[in-house]
């Protein structure tokens, strides 16, 4: 599939098979749903059937005391308030169960408890909701202007926040000879991890502690949130994230249902479990991607972009979230829209609007799938306007390697890379000329061939200053790793991030191997448990391998002098003469060596053989790390795709898909490829399949996977992935994050390819997903337009 890329051994750069695969492939993974505690009760939520309404009354069934709960019953739980320091941001709170009003279809209103989930659902059917329906805000543009109907009554409009930027727009736009206007739009999606939200909560009397098995990417953050919202000490909350079946951003926040179940366990001191089902997920988790762009590009007649004017409207749904807040999406949208391009005039206003839909959350790629879609469709539109090859226009505008490091028009600091190089390599590996020849010669079945490119850069592992600038109530700082050599020469690595598909049980072992040479099978990586791991804000924003990985590398490095000290003593040479060798252990100048295992044995079991002045901190250490510069290590990629379009049915088939990516120093090329494949699959979902539409009453049209289409194995092409390696100057070993990237470019590349295929007929599609219906309608619109143009001429 991809050119074999990898270094020998087990350290950084090696294609080490994933250690975690064995349990997953043998069906021995342990997820929250696998946890069974004695006396465990099941929870079901009765959810709002209407999008907007005032709760006039809730009647519990007779005899349901202690089994049916409304907001007023959860006395000890506070609402989930999500403050932000962003200008214009309006504060909102989400109650664990709806209170006063319901604000979207699927909002939890009543919590029911029974021995089985089915019985809990039976119970929920006996509850009578009396809700006075209110006018519904479905369209973000309309909601932005609406003042009398409001999602949050205490506000004076429906704007979560408005962000604006203007850097040299007036001056530079005046120099343009070509002006290109385009509107583009992405539909609302759900994230659809294989495992939805899931919690089992119980009270450990001995530890005097709420213990929660919790499907989360960020156990330490969640601990802070649960403690805060229940009024517990942090020491009274332990969050254990066992195997987690996909996160994608859905699991970086404290959800109301999770807080409600935590309250049950705290109150009743018994185990309670709630597992989100697929219908709940699709209805109450439709929370991503819905952006609308109004763009005007100002370019010269050679396709050089001079200035960009943009208005972005984000359909924020009903609630902000804790701790990332709804400000993250508009913050990323406005600052990432310029993408990998070199232009200096930029004006943008981004509205984040409250509507009667589930609250927006950060989905893999966070805003960048949208901004890449907008920017890359615009680049192709510029190319058509100046009658140039879109590839050439892209080449002309990408930041060049000699400009690195490059501070772009919004002062994003692109640390390193060769953006045009990646695009050129993509074109070469993709064999664009072959596709263009095939396009020209035509297909036997009448389908039209098109090719499309998309380039992006991805801020990864951005730290304190960046998150602080997005106004978050909780900002990541240093990440920590605790490493401990064991008496038999193995290593334990404990980190506060969580691995749920990223392969970190393997890659972190490779980092340790890089420093200490210990076989990866002897390196045990423990993650995702606040009771056993040092603090980290967790896994999100393509950060773990740089942040916690960096801490792991540093911690292993800190052990080296301690190891050498003991080894030199055993070898009867001086510490300064001895050196550490990854395969031999501690080596004396004359070549004699003592294995690492023996050093460990001496420290733990035979301290009588250790030097008197042994380093008393021992063979374990906890070290914190953040990169020298915390503005991010920018990964980047170019995607190239060839499609065949059936104009009779609107069907799009992907014939070839090439990714050229550069995430700095590769830790494990196979893991990078796996992450890329998964991301591209999700991007294809955004491009062609996934969508939840709402009717005028705010009712979602998809509540099962029969209506919400996901790409399956037959819809995902056998993509070809190629690597470039430009180390970041700011991180340990030059490693960059890359977890989100795959999901960013596919909609842009695929739409550009479809538009290329049908360019002769004037077709230009600009709204995700590209359903057959949308494409057929556009083909008809273009046909009528062409006819009208001809008649006018």
């Amino acid at each position: 599939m991809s050119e074999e890329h990898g270094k020998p051994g087990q350290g950084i750069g090696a294609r080490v098979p994933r250690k975690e695969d064995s349990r997953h492939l043998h069906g021995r993974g342990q997820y929250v749903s696998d946890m069974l505690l004695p006396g465990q009760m099941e929870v079901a939520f009765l959810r709002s059937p209407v999008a907007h309404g005032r709760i006039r009354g809730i009647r519990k069934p007779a005899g349901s005391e202690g089994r049916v709960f409304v907001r007023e019953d959860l006395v000890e739980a506070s609402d989930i308030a999500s403050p932000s320091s962003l200008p214009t941001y309006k504060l909102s709170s989400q109650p664990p169960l709806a209170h006063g009003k319901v604000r979207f279809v699927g909002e939890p209103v009543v919590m029911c408890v029974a021995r089985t989930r089915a019985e809990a659902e039976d119970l929920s059917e006996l509850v009578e909701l009396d809700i006075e329906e209110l006018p519904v805000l479905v369209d973000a543009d309309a909601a932005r202007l609406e003042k009398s109907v409001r999602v949050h009554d205490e506000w004076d409009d429906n704007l979560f926040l408005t962000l604006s930027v203007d850097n040299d727009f007036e001056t530079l736009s005046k120099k343009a000879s070509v002006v290109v206007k385009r509107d583009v739009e992405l539909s609302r999606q759900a994230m659809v991890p294989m495992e939805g939200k899931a919690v089992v909560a119980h009270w450990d009397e001995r530890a005097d502690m709420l213990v929660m098995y919790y499907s989360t990417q960020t156990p330490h953050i969640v601990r802070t949130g649960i403690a805060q919202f229940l009024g517990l000490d942090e020491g009274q909350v332990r969050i254990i994230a066992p195997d987690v079946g996909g996160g994608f951003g859905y699991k970086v926040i404290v959800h109301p249902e999770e807080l409600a179940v935590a309250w049950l366990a705290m109150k009743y001191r018994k185990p309670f479990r709630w597992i989100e089902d697929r219908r709940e997920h699709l209805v109450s988790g439709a929370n991503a991607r819905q952006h609308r762009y109004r763009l005007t590009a100002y370019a010269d007649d050679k396709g050089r972009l001079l200035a960009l004017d943009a208005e972005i409207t984000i359909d924020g749904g009903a609630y902000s979230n804790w701790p990332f807040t709804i400000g993250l999406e508009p913050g990323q949208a406005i600052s990432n829209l310029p993408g990998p391009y070199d232009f200096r005039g930029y004006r943008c206003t981004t509205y984040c609007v409250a509507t009667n839909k589930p609250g927006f959350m950060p989905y893999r790629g966070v805003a960048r799938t949208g901004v890449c879609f907008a920017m890359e469709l615009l680049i192709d539109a510029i190319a058509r306007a100046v009658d140039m090859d879109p590839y050439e226009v892209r080449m002309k505008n990408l930041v060049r390697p000699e400009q690195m490091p490059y501070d772009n028009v919004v002062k994003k600091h692109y640390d390193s890379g060769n953006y045009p190089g990646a695009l050129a390599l993509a074109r070469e590996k993709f064999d664009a000329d072959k596709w263009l020849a095939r396009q020209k010669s035509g297909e036997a079945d009448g389908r039209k061939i098109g090719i499309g490119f998309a380039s992006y850069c991805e801020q990864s592992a951005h730290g304190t200053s960046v998150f602080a600038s997005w106004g978050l109530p909780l900002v990541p700082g240093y990440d920590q790793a605790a490493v401990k050599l064991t008496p038999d020469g193995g290593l334990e690595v404990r980190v506060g991030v969580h691995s749920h598909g990223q392969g970190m049980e393997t890659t972190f072992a490779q980092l340790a191997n890089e420093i200490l040479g210990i076989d990866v099978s002897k390196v045990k990586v423990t993650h995702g448990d606040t009771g056993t791991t040092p603090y980290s804000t967790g896994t999100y924003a393509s950060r773990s391998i740089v942040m916690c990985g960096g801490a792991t590398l540093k911690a292993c490095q800190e052990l080296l002098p301690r190891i050498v000290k003991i080894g030199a003593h055993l070898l009867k040479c001086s510490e300064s003469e001895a050196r550490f060798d990854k395969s031999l252990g501690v080596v004396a100048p004359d070549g004699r060596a003592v294995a690492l295992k023996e050093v460990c044995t001496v420290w733990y079991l035979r301290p009588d053989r250790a030097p008197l002045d042994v380093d008393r901190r021992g063979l374990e250490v906890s070290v914190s790390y953040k990169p020298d510069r915390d503005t991010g290590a920018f990964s980047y990629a170019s995607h190239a795709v060839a499609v065949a379009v059936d104009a009779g049915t609107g069907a799009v088939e992907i014939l070839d898909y090439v990714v050229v990516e550069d995430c700095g120093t590769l830790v494990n090329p196979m893991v990078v490829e796996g992450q890329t494949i998964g991301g591209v699959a999700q991007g294809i979902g955004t491009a062609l399949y996934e969508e939840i539409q709402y009717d005028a009453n705010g009712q979602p049209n998809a509540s099962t996977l029969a209506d919400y289409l996901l790409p399956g194995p037959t819809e995902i092409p056998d993509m070809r992935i190629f690597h470039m390696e430009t180390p970041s100057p700011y991180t340990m070993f030059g490693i960059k994050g890359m977890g989100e990237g795959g999901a960013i470019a596919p909609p842009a590349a695929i739409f550009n390819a479809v538009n290329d295929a049908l360019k002769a007929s004037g077709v230009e599609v600009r709204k995700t997903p590209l359903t057959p219906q949308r494409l057929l309608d556009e083909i008809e619109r273009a046909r009528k337009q062409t006819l009208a143009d001809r008649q006018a001429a």
Partner: protein
Amino acid sequence: MKAAAFEYLKPADVAAAIAALAGAAGDAKPLGGGQSLGPMLNLRLARPKLLVDVSKLAAMRAIEDRGAAWRIGGAVTHATIEDARLAGCGVLSEVARDIAYRIIRNRGTIGGSLAHADPAADWPLALPALAASIFIAGPAGERQVPAEDFMTGAFATVLTEDEIVIAVEVPKLSANARWGYWKFCRKTGEFPEASAAVLLDPARKLARLWIGALNGAPQALTALAADVAQRGTLAATELAIGQALERAAPTLDYAGRRLHIAAVQRAVKKACD
């Protein structure tokens, strides 16, 4: 998303199944492979008090060669039909092969699919096109209904609440018969957005053209079928199909019409090529 409580009955034979259904006064449902009823139970869209499992009844699991026709029991799975060698009815295996996914075909039954009557399903389209008959058992005994009269609308059939589909009978195709079946699915295994089936069997004086995936039951395009029998693909112009659709499926939107035109043209092409 768990089913409401229900009783489950595994009857000894068809008579016992009918008796159980009749005794439940409309509060029972026969259960075949459960590939549609299962999700509907879980979504609580179906809430029968009693499920009568007919999927294991021997009388409904047989495939018999009746000379001029194949008789296929109502509880025969799609996968069994897919794997069968049905001389003169190989088209049934072709249709079965493209129903959903194999794991669904392993359980889903032909009788269950007909009784469920999803407008986009395959058997409700293919069987009328093949001039099949459907055998129904109920308290009053057995009756036989032409497949084209079986489905009366979306998720609606001639079945009463105490009747079950015990078998279908599909006439064998003549040696020179032509068959074309084409459906457009957004992805592998999904229900189609448009579908069409064409049977041209001059030896039996049959020319049938049916379309499915409509708002209601599949429809016959009879006049067009006759024209196709005469002139082949030349008859299947966009204009002619469009006019036929105006009568047979007037509520289709623009894209729906385009997709059905494509389905008819491609089914005809398959039959005529």
